[in-house]
């Protein structure tokens, strides 16, 4: 036998070192931020989106034809964007909550999901608009009254720094509009099985290549999140003690690079798999949709609802 195949002697001896948690330091096994984020992402994608638990519930929206749902939601969002009446917007937002209820979705969970990121993204963006130097108007709350004209970086500041009624109204309207759109988008995607949603996009003439890209991204995001988690787990099983910040940073950048190369290789294989089953650039699909009485009922009530809101506004 050649020497290269000989197992070294130390590998055949057992390691008798103590297996005890050191008393001096019992650290909580803290996961890194990225690892935690990936784990939660993977969990949400697998358990909530891919398993389509909400789409299988027996609620109102789950029974509707996906095309009808898609078109009515787009109209709904369009209406919310165009209306200038705050009461109408509040009514529209409350009715999205009603939709959550009628579709047997967990209202609190969805509210949390929407309102956790709403302050971060939208509220921060609209914050400057509430002040009188962006949206002039009737002061609602005076923050500071300058005694004399003040200049800051060459700009002349107004004598009064205040929150205006018009500014607050514009901010609240924007936040309401975004909440309505995000809620409807979320409701649409969780109450419709993905494959059916994609087919309904085909039917309303959204370009095929766009739908294929969306579909593939959705399909493979789970695969890649899992592969990146595996990379973290593989490293963890070989890590003894704490790692320095810089070596962590290096690992993350290496992992991103490795994942990129893997995804390139993978996409090549997926493309070949598609070609070998007759794909030539256009995905053919079956459209097993039929409109039911419920769909017509839904269309009529949406039209009625919007007309009413229009008259009110």
């Amino acid at each position, binding site marked *: 036998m050649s020497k290269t195949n000989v197992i070294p002697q130390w590998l055949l001896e057992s390691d008798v070192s103590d297996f005890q948690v050191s008393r001096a330091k019992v650290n909580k096994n803290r996961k890194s931020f990225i690892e935690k984020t990936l784990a939660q992402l993977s969990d949400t994608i697998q358990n909530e989106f891919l398993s389509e638990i909400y789409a299988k519930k027996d609620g109102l929206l789950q029974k509707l034809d996906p095309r009808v749902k898609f078109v009515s939601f787009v109209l709904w969002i369009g209406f919310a964007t165009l209306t200038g009446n705050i009461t109408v917007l509040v009514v529209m937002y409350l009715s999205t909550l009603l939709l959550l209820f009628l579709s047997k979705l967990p209202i609190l969970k969805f509210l949390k999901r929407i309102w956790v990121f709403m302050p971060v993204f939208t509220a921060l963006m609209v914050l400057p608009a509430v002040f009188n130097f962006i949206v002039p108007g009737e002061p609602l709350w005076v923050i500071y009254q300058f005694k004399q004209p003040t200049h800051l970086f060459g700009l002349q500041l107004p004598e009064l720094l205040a929150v205006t009624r018009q500014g607050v109204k514009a901010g609240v309207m924007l936040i309401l509009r975004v909440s309505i759109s995000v809620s409807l988008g979320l409701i649409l995607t969780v109450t419709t099985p993905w494959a059916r949603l994609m087919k309904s996009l085909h039917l309303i003439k959204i370009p095929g290549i766009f739908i294929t890209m969306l579909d593939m991204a959705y399909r493979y995001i789970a695969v890649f999140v899992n592969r990146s988690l595996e990379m973290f787990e593989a490293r963890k099983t070989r890590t003894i003690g704490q790692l320095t910040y810089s070596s962590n940073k290096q690992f993350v950048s290496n992992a991103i690079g490795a994942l990129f190369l893997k995804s390139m290789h993978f996409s090549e294989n997926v493309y*070949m*798999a598609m070609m*070998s089953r007759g794909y030539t650039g256009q995905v*053919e699909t079956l459209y097993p949709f039929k409109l039911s009485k419920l769909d017509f009922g839904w269309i009529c009530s949406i039209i009625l609802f919007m007309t009413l809101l229009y008259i009110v506004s």
Partner: protein
Amino acid sequence: MDNGAIVFELNNAVYSYLDGVPVLNNINLQIKQGEKICILGANGCGKSTLLKILCGLIFPTSGEFTAFGEKITEQKLENDDFSKKYHKKVGFIFQDSDAQLFCGSVWDEIAFGPLQLGLGEREVRNKVEDIIHMLNLNAIRDRAPFRLSGGEKKKVAVGSVLVTNPEVLILDEPTNGLDPKTQRWLVNLLIQLNKAGKTIITSTHNLELVQEISDRIIVFSEEHQIVADGPTHQVLDDKELLINVNLIDEYYHKHEGTHSHYHIHNY
């Protein structure tokens, strides 16, 4: 079964990547209709590349590749009509089922091929239902392929290829990661399909499997060349050859008339 028409023919075929190192080196090969062939070789010897050429997914850098009497070139396969007809005849089951299953549900996955080939709705539905019934996939028909187990994924991948009724079935390491029962199921299926006249080409490392799913073996060396091509029993009996191509070591042996396997011997 070697009296059929020639399905594939490679003459002096070479395939190399951009760096110029050949992955296939001067390959000459003929495959006839109805044959069941195994391609053997150590990891990285070029088996998968050969299979992809046969499937019309990549093309030899030099040399000639003929399939069904027609010279196959990249230009010809760029023609949508020709490409569809070619892929209808040659089915390819990938090693990595995740790459092969790209649709949202099992039903859609199986329907993908026939829909791409332009079959009518009714025919597509009938064929998909037949395949679901044959492979006993009814319980998972609406599930996302991502959520399936390894064995289920392989079954769906096989179904998604068989549904277009290809004349040639090419499988890249099909039993990798499958439990013994699923392996047995796949072997039986391949044998049945071959009896029905289909050409089966498999690349594998599983020498026990080889004896059942092939009457002919093509062996690749680590230099990416064909070093043996002959009847299965004859090639498997040539222990020296298999050792030379790094496929087995000296502990591999056969039991008279039954099967071959490893024994752990005392060092």
